[in-house]
């Protein structure tokens, strides 16, 4: 079971800030593929991965990262702090 979090417009497009997902996905990219196939709102949110960033257990990573042993995955647009 993985806790999946969404921020900013990713959260708005999917409609929820977080959810628990039971998945066999090996990598972040596999998880994205699985989510895309679920419903249109996911397909819309994950339409262009170049516009997205991903963090695993609160560390920035990339879409090829493995999910084994991971507790938390977060998807969000490029950050705009400062």
């Amino acid at each position, binding site marked *: 079971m993985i806790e999946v*979090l969404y*921020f*900013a*417009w990713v*959260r708005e497009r999917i409609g929820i800030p977080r959810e628990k997902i039971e998945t066999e996905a090996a990598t972040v990219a596999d998880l994205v593929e699985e989510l895309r196939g679920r419903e249109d709102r996911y397909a819309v949110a994950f339409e262009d991965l170049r516009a997205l960033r991903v*963090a695993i257990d*609160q*560390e*920035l990573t990339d879409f090829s990262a493995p999910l084994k042993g991971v507790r938390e995955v*977060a998807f*969000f*647009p*490029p*950050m*705009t*702090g*400062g």
Partner: protein
Amino acid sequence: MTVRVDPARFDPGAELNAFSKGVGNAGAVVSFTGVVRDVAGGLSAMEIEHYPGMTEKAIAAIVDQAKSRWTLADALVIHRYGRLEAGEMIMMVATASRHRVDAFQAAEYLMDYLKSRAPFWKKELTREGAEWVEARDEDEAALDRW
């Protein structure tokens, strides 16, 4: 080193005074304060979202990086989230060092990394509606100089 991620307003003058008092004989203190701009189209407010937990860790890691590159007596990062009106302070950084070059460069480094590597997202609320602020290529490119 102090990192504060907090929705509350802060007084940059009071923060800077308190910070300066605690830096011992560091000869240089540099500070930067970010303010909500009033953009064309009439900005009424800004909403800042963040990733609780990751935000604090990411900022602490950025400060650690700065401390490994420059000799710093102390560093301060304050970043707000939630709803902010035009003219309100969004964030501030302060650095203290024996010499000004270290303090200036570390402050710029902190600012560059906070912009693109700390998980905050800004949404501008104007008369025309609400819009997420897009990350700019220049901000990403700014990291290359370090």
